[in-house]
């Protein structure tokens, strides 16, 4: 009763602002169609065989060993990758935020590099180094029967791909722990070791758990690394679902595997968001916590430092190998320098480059704006269905790309929505898949901004949209930047959902990279990878410049 009254009141107030109403309705329907509907389609497909409701496909899980081992393999890989990723990420975050060590800036950028490249570039590097014709395995060690394919290959590659994500998350967590707390513990006689385990670690524990779950989700949903490195003897869920659909054209089995993939991802997401999200101890004091940690002795400090340096060195090695590989005629046999791979990319394969760029250029501003608008609606507006919109719009963050891809071909291949093979389907897929990061950072920044600044704009005569454009957006510029960069990077590097949606008309560089790897042409794959990384770096610089211009005066303003 009270609820109904409240909704009625909110509607009454909203009705005075038709633009806002229209905006909310459009976003609601879009989320329903492009986030929820495909998932429902996947669920339905997994429960139907030739139009008849049945649990038969799920019965396959018990009958076929292939499926069972895919589940076990996927879960064990993502658990291990989650653990290793968090350990490396925590050490790197601790060393680079709390210790006074040389080269912090360079190490920071090196550690982050994997984030802006396609998620399976490290898989290509690993093939260069440890593959059949790998430099290390064949040329240096002369191993004959070593195979990189399988559990160890996937884990190694994913750790390098996803540890940086844990690093970024934990960096924020560690930087927000006031060093005075550590000093206080030391002051009452605790040793450095005790201080770490009794103060620093417990304070960062929710952050650690949250980072683990994020890496777990990323690893579980990863498609490229398993496809390249798992091999036939080591089935995993995401590539298996893909093979069911593109190889055996068995939609209901593909959908069933997608549902199986979805369950642990959503569970991890729910824990991360609704349980841990409320347990982060952020001690915001307004004072910069610049002071270096005194809880580690010099030997420990340098030991930790060398781990970070080693990680950065391996990252450098991986990318170095890609650079060299891109200019090498035939890796493993003929190391003469060549521009042939680039010539291929810029000639035969150039369509994929332009297609990818067009898609990224359309998706990025849309995604950035949508993210900020939704954040604005969530934080500043009251309307019925508020919570549902928030949930729906960030839900896709937790849905593995493979599931989304299958959902999109199921949902948009037949009336009322026929879009397969078009540019639109790729743009919409990327838009709704990658907008949650923008939304979440927009929400975080907006919550810290005094609402009376926006009220002042309203008070002076600005309508909702004008207020958003002239006041809110400039104020949340940092989040806008994050949203834009994330959308662009992801649009350039995405593969798991996109691989279901590309067509002869619209192709992507990442798909090309996988195809080239598949046909053994690692040089071309490396050349494509370099082009992607180059474009992303240039784009970040351009976006940064654009966002800075938008907020000339606020560069030095804290709000």
């Amino acid at each position, binding site marked *: 009763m*009270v609820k109904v009254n*409240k909704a009625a*009141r909110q509607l*009454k*107030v909203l009705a*005075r*602002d038709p633009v806002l109403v229209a905006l909310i309705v459009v976003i609601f329907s879009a989320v329903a169609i492009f986030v929820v509907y495909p998932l429902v389609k996947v669920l339905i497909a997994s429960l139907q065989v030739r139009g008849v409701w049945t649990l038969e496909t799920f019965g396959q899980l018990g009958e076929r060993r292939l499926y069972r081992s895919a589940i076990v393999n996927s879960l064990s890989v993502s658990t291990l990758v989650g653990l290793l990723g968090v350990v490396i990420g925590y050490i790197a975050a601790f060393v680079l935020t709390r210790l006074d060590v040389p080269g912090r800036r360079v190490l920071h950028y090196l550690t982050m590099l994997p984030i802006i490249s396609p998620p399976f570039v490290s898989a290509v590097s690993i093939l260069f180094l440890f593959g059949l014709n790998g430099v290390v395995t064949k040329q240096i060690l002369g191993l004959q029967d070593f195979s990189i394919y399988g559990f160890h290959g996937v884990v190694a590659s994913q750790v390098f791909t996803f540890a940086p994500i844990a690093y970024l998350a934990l960096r924020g967590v560690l930087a927000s722990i006031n060093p005075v707390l550590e000093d206080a513990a030391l002051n009452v006689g605790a040793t450095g070791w005790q201080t770490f385990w009794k103060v620093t670690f417990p304070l960062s524990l929710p952050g650690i758990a949250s980072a683990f779950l994020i890496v777990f989700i990323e690893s579980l949903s990863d498609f490229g690394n398993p496809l390249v490195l798992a091999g036939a003897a080591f089935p995993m869920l995401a590539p298996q679902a893909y093979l069911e659909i593109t190889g055996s054209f068995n939609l209901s089995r593909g959908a069933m595997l997608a549902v199986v993939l979805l369950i642990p991802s959503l569970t991890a997401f729910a824990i991360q968001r609704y349980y841990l999200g409320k347990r982060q101890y952020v001690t915001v004091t307004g004072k910069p916590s610049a002071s270096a940690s005194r809880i580690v002795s010099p030997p420990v400090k340098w030991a930790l430092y060398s781990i970070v340096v080693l990680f950065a060195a391996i990252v450098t090695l991986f990318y170095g190998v890609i650079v060299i590989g891109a200019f090498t005629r035939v890796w493993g046999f003929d190391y003469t320098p060549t521009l042939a791979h680039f010539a291929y990319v810029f000639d035969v394969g150039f369509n994929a480059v332009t297609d990818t760029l067009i898609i990224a250029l359309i998706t990025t501003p849309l995604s950035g704006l949508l993210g900020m608008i939704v954040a604005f609606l969530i934080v500043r507006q009251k309307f019925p269905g508020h919570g549902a919109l928030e949930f729906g719009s960030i839900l896709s963050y937790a849905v593995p790309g493979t599931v989304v891809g299958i959902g999109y071909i199921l949902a948009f291949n037949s009336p009322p929505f026929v879009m397969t093979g078009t540019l639109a389907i790729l743009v919409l897929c990327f838009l709704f898949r990658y907008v949650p990061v923008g939304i979440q950072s927009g929400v975080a920044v907006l919550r810290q901004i*005094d609402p*009376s*600044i926006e*009220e*002042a*704009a*309203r*008070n*002076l*005569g*600005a*309508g909702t949209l*004008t*207020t958003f454009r*002239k*006041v809110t957006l*400039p*104020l949340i*510029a940092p989040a806008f930047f994050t949203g834009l960069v994330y959308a662009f990077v992801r649009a350039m590097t995405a593969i798991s959902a996109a691989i279901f949606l590309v067509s002869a008309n619209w192709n992507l560089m990442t798909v090309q990279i996988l195809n080239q790897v598949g046909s053994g042409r690692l040089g071309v794959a490396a050349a494509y990878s370099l082009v992607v990384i180059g474009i992303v770096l240039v784009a970040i610089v351009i976006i940064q410049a654009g966002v800075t211009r938008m*907020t*000339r*005066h*606020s560069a*030095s*303003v804290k*709000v």
Partner: protein
Amino acid sequence: MTEPVRIQGLCKAFDNLDDPAKPVLAVNQVNLDINEGELVTLLGPSGCGKTTLLRMVAGFEEPTEGDIFFGDRRMNNVPPNRRDATMVFQSYAIFPHLSIFENVAFGLRLKSQSRKKIEKHVTEVLAMTGLSGMANRSPTQLSGGQQQRVALARAIVMEPRVLLFDEPLSNLDAKLRDQMRIEIRELQQRLGITSLYVTHDQVEAMSISDRIVVMRGGVVEQVGTPREIYSQPANRFVAEFIGRANFITAKVGEANTVDLAGARIALDAPIAASPGDSVTLLVRPEVVTLSPTEGIINGTVRRVMFLGNLTEYLIEVPGTDPWLVELSGPEAPTFTAGDTVRLSLPPSSIHVLAE
């Protein structure tokens, strides 16, 4: 341009998160008329609903009941950006990404006036508020007082129908507060804009207002000029909230007299109680005079506190609570603790409080 404001039966209930069955009545049945060009202050302790009332006038809160009129126009359904009631925010709410000039020009630009006109108008108002020469600075390069002036300039440049202030001076230090108070009052009188001003500082309210609205717990306790509120408070709460007060219990006698502490005083105003009843008298500390010999009530000095411009005495009077007395001026006699004194008070300065 500017218009009178009429508030009728205004209520605001907020959802109570602790007990959904009992909403918080932040504003309760408020009636108020503000005349054209008048400055009315909402005064009351923290949490009494001043800000909520002001925000309903601005359109940021939806009244649960009641009406708001600007002139003859009912404003309830007018969104905040169409109300033409500009506000000076407590936190200033200056746009941090815009220069001072652009902050002040913000509202004018939305009205799509010509560049020239905007420039002229903004420059004028910046001069009026003492901000000349700062037009191109960023808000972070201003002191608190200057930021306050920007907030003021941004509101008055719109030539609004109504000006709203939410504790505009509460973030300033005492000296600056006194100065800005005078500036705001002078500007408001010069421009003649109907104004509603929120504060919890009684001195500020007394010095700036044409009339004061004293609120408590969402309810209006009294509306009146500063003088009326001070000398004829409607009840004990108002009397206590504004200035210092002695509350003396007395018995009503025949023919408009009261008996207190052994003295009988004939009052000027008629008493609303019948003889024999007990009433509470309000006696302000500065209306009482002390003398070693002359007076109508006997007392003993208990405590003396010299405060520079005045001396404060606590006088013990048999049969009543101790009296607070303030003496000032060069002719005031001085006493020390333990002296016996006689108190006198002009009947016209005694106010009988309504029960």
